[in-house]
């Protein structure tokens, strides 16, 4: 049942991915899509497919999966339904680093932001873990430490934005979150980080199951709390830091998808994680395609469409089903 659902989800994802390549300002027939990807001949459509649509779709796939996995791990780790990767301060850390890069170091290219964003995310997640109490960390302390640090960083970001109008002008577009900047080099740069993070997340599914029962029971079941926490935070940093670095802080994908998935699969992380990894890119790529269709020939940023489409669906599900509590 659950495996059939997973197969069906993968099929849906495949269809959306093909649509992602075919649909846009220039419609491309499916056979051309095939040729562009696998038998590049240099035709107009081929160029669009190979240099624009294909990397963009690929990026949407891996970033979507990364955000879904990161959100799932965060909610399990903090045992808090309101936790998204941003709760660890990762989005704020990345944003703070990017705004510094723009304002103080004069970095203007998107590829330049990437490494700043990543570094910011990494530094902040380590800081949250240390402030959250390393060994004596509890879910509530981690969440609070992350939120408190976010508060501080947001203050910093706002201050820079308000004092440097040029930075605000750049930031307001980065903050929205977009897949539009995708190129093959970006994808290949970021893919290894996301891959390592993804494997890590899937590996800790079992101990995360134990953590869901509470610290005492987890210990009784032989789960190594500290190690699991460290690995989980490492996974989240790689996944969410990488995704944020290339696409900007796309929030809410990692927050909403795990809730929907939990309603489908029940509480077993070994199912929740793969489902999230498949359904999140469905939402993200679907939103990306939709954003290109509704605002043709321009486009709506994927961050906006994700939330505008995802929000109502989410509320509908919340109302209809009895949502599984964490």
């Amino acid at each position, binding site marked *: 049942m659950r495996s059939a659902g997973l197969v069906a989800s993968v099929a849906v994802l495949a269809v959306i991915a093909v649509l992602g390549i075919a649909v846009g300002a220039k419609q491309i027939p499916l056979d051309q899509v095939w040729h562009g990807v696998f038998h590049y001949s240099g035709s107009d459509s081929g160029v669009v497919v190979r240099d624009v649509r294909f990397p963009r779709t690929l990026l949407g796939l891996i970033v979507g999966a990364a955000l879904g996995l990161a959100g799932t791990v965060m909610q399990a780790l903090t045992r808090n339904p*309101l936790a998204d990767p941003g709760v660890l301060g990762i989005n704020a850390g990345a944003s703070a680093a990017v705004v510094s890069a723009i304002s103080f170091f004069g970095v203007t290219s998107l590829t330049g932001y990437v490494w700043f964003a990543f570094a910011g995310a990494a530094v902040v997640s380590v800081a949250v873990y240390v402030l959250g109490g390393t060994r004596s960390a509890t879910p509530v302390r981690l969440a609070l430490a992350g939120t*408190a640090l976010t508060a501080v960083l947001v203050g910093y970001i706002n201050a820079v934005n308000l004092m440097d109008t040029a930075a605000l002008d750049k930031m307001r577009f980065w903050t929205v979150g977009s897949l539009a900047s995708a190129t093959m080099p970006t994808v290949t740069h970021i893919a290894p980080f996301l891959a390592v993070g993804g494997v890590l997340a899937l590996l800790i599914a079992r101990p995360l199951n134990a953590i869901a029962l509470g610290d005492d029971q987890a210990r009784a079941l032989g789960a190594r709390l500290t190690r699991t926490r460290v690995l989980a935070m490492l996974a989240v940093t790689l996944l969410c830091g990488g995704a944020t670095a290339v696409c900007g802080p796309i929030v809410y994908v990692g927050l909403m998808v795990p809730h929907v998935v939990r309603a489908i699969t029940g509480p077993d992380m070994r199912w929740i994680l793969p489902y999230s990894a498949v359904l999140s890119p469905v939402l993200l790529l679907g939103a990306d395609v939709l954003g290109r269709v509704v605002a043709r020939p321009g486009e*709506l940023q994927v961050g906006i469409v994700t939330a505008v489409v995802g929000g109502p669906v989410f509320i509908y599900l919340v109302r209809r089903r009895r949502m599984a509590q964490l």
Partner: protein
Amino acid sequence: MSATVKSGKDAGAMSGKDAGVKSGKGAGVKSGEGTGKDAKAGGARGRGVTAARRITAVRTKGGLSLRFDARATFVGLLLLAVALAAGIALIGSGDYPMTPGEVMATLTGGGDAGQQFIVQDLRLPRVLVGLLVGAAFGIAGAVFQTVSRNPLGSPDVLGFAQGSSVGALVVIVYFQGGTFAVAVGAVVGGVVTGLAIFLLAWKRGIHGYRFVLVGIGASAMLYAMVLYLMTKANIVEATRATTWMTGSLNGRDWDQVWPLAAVCAVLVPVVLLYGRPLRMLEMGDDAAYALGVRVDRVRLVALMAAVVLVASATAAAGPISFVALTAPQLARRLTRSPGPNLLPAALMGAVLLVAADWSSQRLFGADQLPVGVLTGVLGGGYLLWLLATERKAGRI
């Protein structure tokens, strides 16, 4: 009215016969926590930490009794004093600095005409707006966190702040409206969002978890609208919108004070009246219901009041972030008592906001940065510090 004052170590003061002795014993326990007297009685983790809190009861012969938690009362009074002191310091700072003495004199009717003008017309309303907005955010945040049973359950997270922002940004971006129009937009946006979330989360009552999840969904959509509006704005409007969304006290006058004061005067007592039943709500719906708490009514009334407080405060100063989130957490860490800590949270909010405004003026010069920049830094930083220092205690 003859009152007998008894104090004892929590409920641990058996009968109040020997109040003096008991009070002495309680005082011997260092600041709320000491080592357990019976570690063998064995907690699951065998740490045997005890937490003795001093509760004082004031009782009259007529059967009336009031309960004071010594530490919470002390913290409350301290916060009140700090809030007032910060207010006076804030009135005294600016292009025309005044000493606290001069401020006090001017407030009580002294001072020359110039000082009168500066204090009464320019700076006092700004400080009052700051105090009221902080208190409103603080107490509303405590309500939200108690009802959602989640320390992250604040109006910024559950979509109410975003609702106000959408309202205000529509006015800024599409109508280029003035301050008053923006405030109206914020109130409309906030209240409409509140009603929508209530209606969507309502299913034979407001269930805490469903309320949280619906809030997440709503917050996602509204945030997307904010981002969209930001990309549609020209750079002047975008700057104005960012300033508004950060939250600012610049140029606030009596026009902002009176409506907010009226709302607070009505709703803060309402929320405080619900403080005791809200405390019962922490133990789960069933337990609260069994104790005679009308769970749904308490939740609905307290939340409605909190939503209106947040909307009014937002209209006056913008959706100053993190005050509603951090103030209740700071308050409960200082009082070390469970429960929503409504009054300490309100006072803490007021302190945070006014102290942030004062530091902002000190550090960056008058009106350079909106206060919202510093509230996050101050509240978040203080919370981090508390988290780091209480690490050994390991207590939330």
